[in-house]
């Protein structure tokens, strides 16, 4: 764990022994069976265990959608807020609480449609947090409407004749936002890659944006099945500074491309790959981007006397 503000950072190790993965599980997850969210949940819980995150120091913030039910299934603090508004809430949580581990769970509608403005700015604030975009390319909870990441021609309840506008490429868009510092893509059905990506994201000193291609067997089986079944459908982005897999995990990929995640221009080129294949891995990382949460924490801990003093000094200006 990175101790970025030594004075106020209290990301403490558990005082009383070791947390097991069960310590992070709350009630049974109520997603459909076969839903990719289940595997992500497990992977996140594993991350918590691996990192021994104190549950009381960990906050999952979400919007609204199937995916956004996530916090209810974690035994940590959680904030299941408003559709599209996870990022502002999470930013508010983190701003003056550097000691908290903040995760954001959002859906493709939540993040890229109604939440798009906050997406642009949340990335720019670059607060230390992990943002997981559960991208199932559909509105799950509201029962199959076109999402901004639905492939062109998707048949949905709002577009029974097929959707008519090209989808957003969330990776490409994020790479164009100001102050972007970490962009990765993974899939819900390759736990090794998912786990490694989460770990890398968690270690990033800033906002780590991870798009997870997520299966929704209820509404989108036809869309994701080819990717799941065709071993040619994935391209692994490989680099020592990227998501590092062991050889065994790596050997399950037919296409591997070297990509240096410090190269932003190249990352944008890689993001275009999406048209033929699903590239997974770390597109971009910059550990030195300005962090707004550091600014938010810079004046924590001022004494009451000092605070009163400052107010009185201002008050003096109005004195008569």
């Amino acid at each position, binding site marked *: 764990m990175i101790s970025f503000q030594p004075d106020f950072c209290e990301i403490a190790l558990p005082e009383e022994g070791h947390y097991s993965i069960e310590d992070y599980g709350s009630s049974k997850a109520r997603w459909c069976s076969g839903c990719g969210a289940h595997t992500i949940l497990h992977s996140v819980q594993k991350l918590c265990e691996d990192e021994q995150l104190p549950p009381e120091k960990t906050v999952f913030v979400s919007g609204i959608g199937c995916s956004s039910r996530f916090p209810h299934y974690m035994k940590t*603090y959680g904030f299941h807020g408003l559709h599209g508004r996870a990022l502002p809430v999470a930013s*508010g949580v983190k701003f003056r609480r550097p000691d908290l581990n903040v995760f954001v769970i959002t859906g493709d509608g939540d993040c890229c449609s109604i939440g798009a403005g906050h997406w642009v700015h949340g990335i720019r604030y670059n607060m230390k947090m992990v943002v997981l975009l559960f991208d199932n390319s559909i509105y799950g909870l509201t029962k199959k409407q076109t999402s901004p990441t639905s492939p062109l021609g998707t048949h949905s309840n709002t577009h029974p004749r097929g959707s008519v506008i090209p989808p957003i490429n969330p990776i490409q868009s994020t790479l164009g936002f100001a102050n972007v510092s970490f962009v990765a893509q993974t899939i819900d059905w390759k736990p090794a890659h998912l786990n490694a990506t989460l770990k890398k994201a968690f270690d990033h000193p800033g906002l780590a944006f991870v798009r997870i291609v997520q299966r929704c067997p209820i509404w989108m089986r036809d869309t994701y099945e080819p990717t799941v079944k065709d071993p040619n459908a994935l391209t692994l982005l490989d680099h020592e500074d990227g998501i590092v897999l062991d050889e065994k995990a790596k050997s399950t990929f037919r296409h591997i491309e070297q990509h240096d995640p410090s190269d932003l221009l190249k990352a944008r080129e890689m993001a275009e790959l999406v048209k033929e294949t699903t590239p997974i891995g770390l597109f971009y990382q910059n550990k030195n981007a300005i962090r707004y949460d550091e600014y938010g924490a810079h004046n924590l801990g001022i004494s009451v006397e000092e*605070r009163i003093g400052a107010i009185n000094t201002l008050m003096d200006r109005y*004195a008569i």
Partner: protein
Amino acid sequence: MISNPASQPSETNRFERTKIKEAVIEIVSDSGEGAQKCGQSLGAISAKMGNGVWTVEIIPAEIQPPARSKAGASGIRVRMGSNKITNMGDHADLVVALNEQVLYGRIDQNAYKPGTYLLIENKWATHTEETAIAYKESIEHFKELGYYIFEIPMEKECLKHVSDAKKGKNMWVLGLLCNLYDRDLEIAANQVKYIFRKKDEKIIQSNLDLLFAGYEYANENFPMHFTIPSKLSEEDYVVMNGNEAISLGVMAAGIEVCSMYPITPATSATHAMAETIESAGGIIHQAEDEIAAIGFAVGASYAGKTAVTITSGPGIALKTEFIGLAIMAEIPLVIIDVQRGGPSTGLPTKVEQGDLLAVLYGAPGDAPKVVLAPSTIEECFHFVILARKLAESFRTPVFVLTDANLATGVQPFPRPKIKAEWFPEPLDQSPWKEGVKVYDWDKNTGISKRPIPGQKGGMYTLTGLAHDEDSHVAYDPAINQRAVESRSRKLAALRETLKPPTIHGDEEGDLLLVGWGSTRGAIEEAAERAREKGAKVSSIHLRFLSPMEPGLKNIFDKFKKVMTVEINYSDTVGNPLITAENRRYSQLAWYLRAQTLTDIDCLSNVYGQPMSPIQILQRLEKELNLTLID
């Protein structure tokens, strides 16, 4: 060091001064000519002398409106008196105008009356031909309107002391006014020094020169000189506008996060604290929009940090959804709405009390919240502190409704002594008491205590879905009923702690005026003036709008008629198609009718102007069939 200059006026009291109780003075000009600085200084000087003061800015709608135009009227009104002054008053007694055209903007707003002195820069009489003609026509017109005109060579006089008259004319005018109204010249000189404290000595000196020159000019050239007796108080005073008071209130409340998106007339509250708040332990977050602003504040509050969001009408509209969430999930939060003219973008710089019902009812579903409305500049300060306390104690959003009139009105009040106890408790990170539910709604009060991230054992997931005591999604219909009831009960519990409003005037009579917010000064002054003429008029002023202060029905029953006075819209019975049955009432009137089943009338308008005592008196004359205005 700067010494008072040679040109210091020699005899300052060589004539008899007329003793007056108060004066309403305006300085109007194109924007950028320093009229506001001049008026603010006059107000500060008067406050320091112990006079009651109220100043209010005259703001054009654009940043750079055309020069010498009606739309360009920029400036300030200063009302000062021997007693406490609580509002901008009726018509101006004396006006200094740096050009004659801007006066039309004020005349349209009914700011002057026959007999008002107009002191007008006369350089325009000899300007371009076109201007000279316009000038002369206007002077004639003003005379016809019954104003007393003084054409004054302001620029010419200033040029005797400085090379660029534009920069210093306002200080010359200040000197002139100081003489006309018998202001203490030493205090005035100190004020000038204070204004220019960051400039170099030469500039301070030349402004002092101008001050004294203006003073001297008034000595020589005016037939009328006044004095407004004052009594210096022992107490320390501060003088500021409502937004500045809010800004200090936010810091004094110990609020750590002020999350906002710029919007007139609210933003200046943030400007006022921007330099200081970081030393006072807080930070301003300028969000990407109003939704994000409240979302950020909600997040901070969820994490145990006290937060405020400040906005105006359109911002309130955008925050509606989050307000519902904050109520549903019981998130403490202070929401300040500096109201402006609506609906929609409306009149961004003008006053209206048009958001009351929107704030009360805006969020779909049952969304009870606390709503406070300060009625003075001083209350702007203290109510933020109160609001923060209520928000945390009752685990709920608390609204503070002010308006453009309070935001820009300036008034002295006793200097608050900042107390450590105004600050919130330090972040509670002790383990959560086992077995206590996240929403352990007290049966009688609905109140419960929330766990704060970091508290061991308190882990829960906050949700905007209907939920039970554990914050679990509610599937059982009875749970929702109980939860909604508990949230509503908090208002009843708070209400138990409130006292009925104070009645100004007799406890019974012919007419009771009911107000809220910035109109207080005007209402109480009008009622008092009416009572002096024998009218049986009293007034009350509500500061809690939700929950309502108790005992209203009892108070109302003792008056033949009850009428609210509000700056917002109501239909006028007698206008085409409008009847008593279909009339749309003013907002507080509507609310009180439902609450008390009393037939409450209203006096209201949407001119975008502060309510003046005389507007109220005019209506009182009609209602009571008395002559109340001299």
